[in-house]
């Protein structure tokens, strides 16, 4: 039994796969913020999972990101190199809101009085210039404890090149304060840039007590139900999982724990249907998130920041993170008119409360969901399987001011709202695809979340992806995605060398060292060597550039003959990304190893979907607005009853309790043997 649990703001989802029968099940209960594990236990009970038989449990949660954004972490102190305690406060000194002459910088997570300096110094080559002054460290720890700090981070200059002073300092801290959570920056990241590394170490310590208490609690509850402690895993921002133990040590790797699961799921759906190139699109209540998967591999960024927006700098975290673009366009996004009279949608959302006007829970602002109801796309009597009857009149009332402002009918106004929400999503989809040198025609768009299926058909017509795919139970697809996860660790080392001067022996030594480390780490997590898969990457650039591109390197020993091939891979990737290549020397900056511990892949059985007549799935017909194709009488089908191998021709709407799929008049839809819906353009 393989079990995945995903805690979201509103619902806690569970997906499980019985490896013996091949049966996949899903369930959800309301999230229990006072004690999150109550809902996890609740889903297991509700689904009737045979808990002691669980062979792999993986968990995603927003607890860590919430502790950060709500500032509910521990009182944290920092020990750093003499002369540099203000690095955390100065940051990169940037002012992204360039016309704002009253800009306020993000406030450091450690106040100045808790940032203590100690004498020590290492240079960029890792050579010691001054030894660590132990008396300084002792004094710093005493002060920090006297101030009541609950966690400590240590970050010294150039510790990525030589961590010995951090290690030494850590030993002293542990002696003096054995119970206090401690992060040494090099344990989390061995990349250069002191502000980013310090920020990462500090944030790790900041969420450390929260993460430990939370995972301990969950572990206790699950083992009480008979689950084996060794099968417990958490989802990491890099798209892989790690053991609870590892998650407690480095909770900063769990920040994007929830959203990445959908991307991993999309990659596996692609794999299942033989389409290795996919774009994932997750449309929820407040935002839409999209990410690109090339040849089965999600894109990873190492320039991740929390709370970064167009007008504020945010906080960097040097943890490899699946590269997701998120925009404020979801079902609850509110439509409004700006002061000079143009229509806008989002980023403000009506959220779960009061929700869209049509819910009748007190919301009176027009949202994207209200627009979809007015366009006939959502069936007001079948929302969440009829659990929430939607009030069309309230949707109309909310939309009326917009219609009046533009002298349009309510239907036209609703269509305008949908069109602007779609345009915002298109821009996000282009950002991850065409703007990075990818042609959408080579990709399948996998749409999920509550609103993915509703908008995907329209987006496809504009973006020209080759196909849209709606997975089974799209509203809980993230939990499904987690079922597919492997264990994963990333190792990054900074060492700058020109490719025409590099000594291959040195290169081999670096990869050998991190691969030995990876072997040790994964073994400790219970992975057999045969199930390990190591991939080497290098961040490379033209000499003189600052930004790099990530180049996949061949496995095995690298010799002089391999270098031209590596160079060529770089030139080609640079040209794909930036449209040109140069004759100038090429530099290697970071050495990146991804170590994957493959866990036994669930085998998806094909469903027992019978061939049959489309008429049996037909529920009726209604008038639906298909934008520039006009209004049309769309046939309405129930997803569960759709037969195999018979195409549904648009205009049509396929309904299921938690989602609605819209098929345009120039599109057709097929249900495949896994239960997935495929939408393609006609002709």
């Amino acid at each position: 039994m393989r079990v995945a649990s995903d805690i979201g703001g509103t619902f806690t989802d569970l997906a499980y796969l019985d490896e013996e029968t091949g049966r996949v099940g899903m369930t959800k209960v309301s999230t229990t913020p006072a004690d999150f594990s109550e809902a996890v236990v609740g889903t297991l009970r509700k689904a009737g999972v045979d808990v002691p038989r669980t062979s792999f449990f993986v968990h995603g949660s927003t607890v860590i990101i919430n502790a950060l954004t709500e500032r509910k972490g521990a009182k944290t102190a920092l020990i750093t190199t003499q002369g540099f305690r203000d690095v955390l406060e100065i940051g990169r000194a940037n002012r992204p809101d360039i016309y704002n002459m009253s800009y306020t910088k993000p406030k450091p997570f450690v106040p100045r009085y808790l940032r203590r300096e100690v004498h020590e110094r290492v240079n960029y080559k890792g050579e010691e210039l001054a030894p660590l002054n132990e008396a300084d460290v002792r004094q710093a720890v005493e002060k920090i404890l006297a101030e009541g700090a609950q966690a400590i981070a240590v970050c010294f200059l150039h510790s990525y090149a030589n961590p010995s002073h951090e290690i030494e300092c850590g030993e002293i801290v542990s002696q003096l304060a054995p119970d206090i959570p401690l992060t040494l920056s090099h344990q989390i990241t061995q990349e250069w840039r002191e502000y980013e590394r310090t920020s990462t170490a500090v944030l790790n310590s900041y969420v450390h007590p929260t993460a430990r208490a939370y995972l301990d609690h969950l572990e206790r509850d699950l083992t009480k139900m008979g689950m084996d402690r060794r099968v417990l895993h958490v989802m990491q921002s890099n798209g892989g999982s790690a053991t609870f133990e590892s998650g407690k040590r480095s909770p900063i790797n769990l920040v994007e724990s929830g959203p990445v699961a959908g991307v991993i799921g999309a990659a596996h759906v692609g794999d299942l249907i033989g389409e290795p190139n996919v774009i994932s699109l997750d449309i929820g209540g407040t935002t839409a998130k999209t990410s690109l998967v090339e040849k089965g591999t999600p894109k990873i960024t190492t320039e991740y920041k929390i709370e970064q927006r167009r007008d504020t700098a945010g906080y960097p975290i040097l943890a490899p993170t699946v590269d997701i673009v998120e925009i404020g366009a979801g079902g609850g996004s509110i439509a409004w008119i700006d002061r000079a009279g143009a229509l806008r949608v989002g980023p403000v959302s009506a959220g779960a409360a009061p929700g869209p006007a049509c819910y009748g829970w007190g919301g009176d602002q027009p949202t994207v969901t209200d627009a979809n109801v007015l366009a006939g796309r959502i069936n007001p009597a079948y929302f969440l399987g009829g659990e929430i009857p939607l009030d069309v009149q309230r949707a109309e009332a909310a939309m009326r001011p917009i219609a009046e402002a533009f002298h349009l009918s309510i239907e036209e106004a609703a269509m305008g709202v949908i069109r602007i929400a779609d345009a915002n999503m298109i821009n996000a989809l282009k950002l991850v695809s065409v703007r990075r040198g990818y042609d959408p025609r080579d990709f399948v768009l996998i749409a999920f979340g509550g609103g993915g299926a509703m908008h995907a058909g329209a987006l496809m017509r504009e973006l020209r992806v080759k196909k849209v795919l709606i997975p089974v139970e799209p509203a809980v697809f993230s939990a499904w995605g987690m079922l597919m996860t492997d264990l994963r660790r990333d190792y990054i080392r900074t060492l700058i060398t020109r490719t025409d001067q590099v000594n291959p022996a040195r290169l081999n030594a670096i990869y050998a060292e991190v691969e030995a480390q990876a072997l040790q780490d994964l073994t400790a997590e219970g992975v057999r060597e045969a199930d390990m898969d190591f991939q080497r990457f290098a961040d490379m650039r033209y000499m003189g550039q600052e930004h790099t591109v990530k180049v996949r390197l061949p496995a095995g020993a690298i010799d002089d003959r391999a270098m031209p091939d590596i160079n060529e891979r770089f030139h080609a990737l640079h040209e794909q990304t930036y449209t040109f290549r140069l004759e100038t020397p090429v530099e290697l900056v970071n050495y990146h190893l991804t170590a994957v511990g493959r866990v036994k892949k669930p085998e998806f059985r094909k469903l027992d979907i019978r061939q049959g007549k489309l008429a049996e799935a037909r529920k009726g017909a209604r008038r639906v607005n298909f934008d520039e194709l006009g209004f049309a009488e769309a046939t309405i089908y129930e997803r569960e009853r759709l037969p195999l191998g018979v195409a549904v021709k648009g205009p049509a709407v396929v309904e299921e309790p938690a989602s609605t799929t819209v098929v345009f008049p120039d599109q057709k839809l097929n249900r495949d043997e896994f239960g997935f819906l495929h939408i393609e353009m006609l002709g």
Partner: protein
Amino acid sequence: MAFDPFTLTILQESLRAAADEMFVRLGKASKSPIIYEVLDYACALISPASELICEAQGVPGFTGVLPSAVRSILEKYGAQAMKSGDVYATNDPYSGGGTHLSDVCLIGPIFWDGELVAFAANKAHWTEVGGMAAGSWTTDATEIYQEGLQLPAVKLYDGGEPVGSLIDLIAANVRLPDSTLSDLYAGVAALRAGETRVRELCQRYGVMEFRQSIGEMLDHGERLARLRLGALARGVYQAEGWMDDDGLSDDPIPIRVKVTIDGETFTADFTGSSPQVRGPINGTWARLQSAGRVVFKAITAPEVPNNEGCFRPVKVLCPMGTIFTAERPAPVSTYWEAGAAAVDLLWRALYPIARDRLTVGHFLSICGTSLSGVDDEGRLFVLVEPQAGGWGAGADKDGENGLVAQGDGETYNIPVEVCETRYPVLVEQYALDIVPYGAGRYRGGRGLVRDYRILCRQASLTTTFGRHRFPPWGAAGGQQGSPNGAAIIPAGSSEPVVWSGKLTRYPLRRGDLARLVTGTGGGYKHPFERPVEMIQADVKDGYLTLQQAERSYGVTLHPETLEALQLHRAPGA
């Protein structure tokens, strides 16, 4: 498809996304730290009538300057002579959106169905354009001819093909041809991205709708700007001040502005400011225009995307030949000092009517720093960076500590670890400077100290730190801030031998220490009004010393417990 009111919003978002894409592409592909760290560049789409459609920029200085560059190309060549794939280049400071020679404009016409529909353009600070000093800016040039290669609206690509002889000419006249040409290619790549997106939009919506929507967009921008302008208090607002000196003499330079807001227009008149000076701190007409637009935007609608319409109510007046509007052959390579001074003048003039959007005086100068030399392995190095410093207090907040100046924006400092890896220096501290200035009910933000210990046989330091003699202003009883400056502490000594705003190729030897200091911002309201608990917290954090608490804030604290021992705040002080 039919034109409708929503297409306006969609096109605007798509065009903005296109400008962002051009911007990202140029930055990531560039080899110039001034481009990829300082983000001293802008990308724009411009209509065939030389109107700004949209732009993306990392610093405010280029706001709205690209359309006049397009106009100069159109006047010289005429639209008829242009074809798809052409690229024009200009860096003339005295015309066509010109600033200094390092800022090169690239312009590419965009055609759809044989018809000129728009221009893609960018302006970026290239690493090197030749001239008397490495990096192409210095403090002692007296003529433009010392400042680098001039590109007077030349055609660089002909129908998609680079003009080889021109490329060779550029390469031969710059010190780092590889970097300079990379900046050129990065700029052309950005133009191509803009072209692709515009053509897609023409295809999707049709040329007619594209044009009609752009007209609507500009009108929409104008309506918003006028709405905000109407909310500003009508009146005449004046300010006058000084710039330190021109680098060649010690004479302060008088500057002044008169702003008139009458509900219809926002007029900034700089008449009466000093004539142009001998040294290279002269500003240009285009930079002065952008100063007016930047401040107008800051006090009206900072969040609205820029287009021509937003700036229709703004008029910037100044006779030619002044410190702000230099004429040939005046040197202009550190033109940003005059630009910053113009912004600060407007800022001070308008401060009384916009306290909610403007903080008091900040360290202002870019604090341009250029350290060059030959390292122990015989390689030439040039470290060029702006410095971050202290900002002024706001109406309800302390000033920001260590933030880049107004003339910078999404500009990054160079990490210590990167700096020490690339250049033969040891950074001995990077810290807030706790000086006894900037006190107030709300404090000025702290400036910074950055120490470079020289690790090679010899190096040379050029700095242009304005506000060395005229520190940041305070308001309503708040104190003024502290000056910017560079100090030299020779090897083996701990005493500075030099303390100056401008250093010109100052020779340094192994073991010498260059200390770069930026100002603390001005304070707002009298320091005695600052609550004692805030002062106690400041002292605990080390933002204030015990002595400063006593002298500036009138509070004597116990050195250990920080308990308030004595309050000597004279009533009405």
